[in-house]
């Protein structure tokens, strides 16, 4: 079990501040690193991977600094955003070379296992330069996983993968997370992050805007009304009853139910069953409809 820790980390280039006083702790499991383009995600990942010195603060993996410390690569795997691979090698040669450079006791077996993990066994003897984008990506993931690192950092790992490969990669990352690996992946596709991980670190304009389970983050945003989709045996009568409730700030009656805006998540969810029971109305559906990562993310960006 490895822990990645950033403590008051800033990174600037001349007058431009790319990362501003970020502190975060990554525990075992899968965490998504989110942020709009130019927010500083790659800079954070590069500092974690030991490819950039923090201008201020410290970046450590299990209390060892990542900068100027090649020893950390025994427990760290990196899939960088840039796709460059030694194209003149075959997938097998490339992964085997990585296993040898990791000084593994049985590089051949580790190579076989890693290639099987990303389903590249069939194409392992082809030169990488003949591969599609997705195949290159999987080969790079195999190379990053060949030494079974405790920490895996992936920068936009799903780029170029087809839907089936994406699903397979998601399953793989899930499995590794469940096994106790610490995995951080950046993505600008919210759906991917939503499917893969509840835990997010959101970076906006170089600052850490939010950290933790995105559903919990949403509930903490008390200044934004929570939106619920409600269906019942009598939607109109329920709407009339609900409008008298203090925590309800607005209701829209639609063909397939009600959209209710509540200023207080807790009070509303407690009041709704009481009101429905009092009116003799049967509730058929209650869904928080803006707890998706997308709405949380857009709220954070607007804030």
């Amino acid at each position, binding site marked *: 079990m490895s822990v990645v820790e950033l403590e008051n980390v800033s990174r600037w280039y001349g007058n431009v501040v790319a990362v501003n006083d970020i502190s975060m702790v990554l525990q075992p499991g899968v965490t998504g690193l989110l942020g709009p383009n130019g927010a500083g995600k790659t800079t954070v990942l590069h500092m974690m991977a030991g*490819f950039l010195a923090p201008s201020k603060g410290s970046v450590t993996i299990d209390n060892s600094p990542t900068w100027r410390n090649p020893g950390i690569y025994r427990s760290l795997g990196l899939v*960088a955003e840039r796709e460059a691979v030694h194209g003149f090698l075959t997938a097998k040669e490339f992964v085997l070379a990585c296993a040898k450079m*990791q000084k593994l006791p049985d590089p051949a077996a580790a190579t076989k296992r890693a290639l099987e993990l990303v389903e590249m066994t069939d194409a392992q003897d082809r030169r990488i330069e003949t591969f599609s984008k997705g195949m290159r990506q999987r080969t790079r993931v195999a190379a990053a996983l060949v030494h079974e690192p405790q920490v895996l950092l992936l920068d936009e790992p799903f780029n170029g993968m087809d839907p089936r490969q994406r699903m397979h990669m998601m399953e793989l990352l899930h499995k590794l997370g469940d096994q106790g690996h610490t995995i951080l992946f950046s993505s600008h596709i919210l759906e991917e992050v939503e499917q893969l991980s509840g835990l997010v670190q959101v970076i906006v304009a170089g600052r850490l805007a939010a950290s933790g389970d995105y559903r919990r983050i949403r509930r903490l945003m008390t200044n934004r009304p929570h939106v619920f989709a409600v269906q019942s045996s009598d939607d109109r009568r329920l709407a009339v009853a609900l409008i008298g409730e203090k925590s309800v700030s607005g209701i829209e009656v639609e063909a397939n139910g009600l959209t209710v805006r509540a200023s207080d998540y807790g009070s509303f969810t407690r009041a709704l069953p009481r009101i429905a029971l009092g009116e003799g109305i049967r509730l058929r559906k209650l869904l928080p409809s803006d707890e998706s990562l997308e709405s949380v993310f857009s709220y954070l960006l607007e804030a």
Partner: protein
Amino acid sequence: MSTVAYITMRGLLGRRRVLLLLPLPLLLVGLALICRAYDVNPEQWGQAVVLGLGLAVVLPVISLIVGTGVLGSEVDDGTIVHILTKPLPRRDIILAKLLVASGVSAVTSAVPLFFAGLLADSVRFGLALVVGAVVGAIAYSALFLLLSLVTRRPVLLGLAYILVWEGLLGRFVSGTRVLSIEQYVISITDKIAPTGMLDGKVSLPVAIVMSLIFALGGTIYAINRLGSFSVAGETS
């Protein structure tokens, strides 16, 4: 052979860049052969071919192509990340790269120089050129390897060193010769096999010490630079 050296070797010899290494040595041997075939007096062509082409062009240009190719191309295309994300001491990476660069440059330039020396004078002169070429290949490789880490335009800077510093200033400004690898190679070769063709402008001790300084200094500085290698984010 270490894995880093293996990948470097494959990268170097597996690309089209390797074809760039062939014309100059062939030209050198070809010219010497033609001169010999037509019985031209070596005093007339020896200096021009061995010094003017061999030591002033073939050795440094081949070392430049190879020296910047072993690391600079990986830095350029980003594949260096795959080597750097391994728990290898940076010293081992630089030494492996330097070994490949020096070895390939030395072989590619020493062989034609040997034949040119043999055709122009004697076996002894050919062997002296081999020694000079090996020393020169090591010093040039260390310098050009370092250039790939300190600048984004190592080839341009390397060419400026060869053409402007060694080729132009070296002829007219005597002080610049102390920092000219070509001059060390000339002095060492001339000391081993004195002929009228080469005229060492720096003393042997200076040539040896300065070659060592170039080789060791370049290597140590390159190791240090690689230790602090930063990757800038493309979309950070």
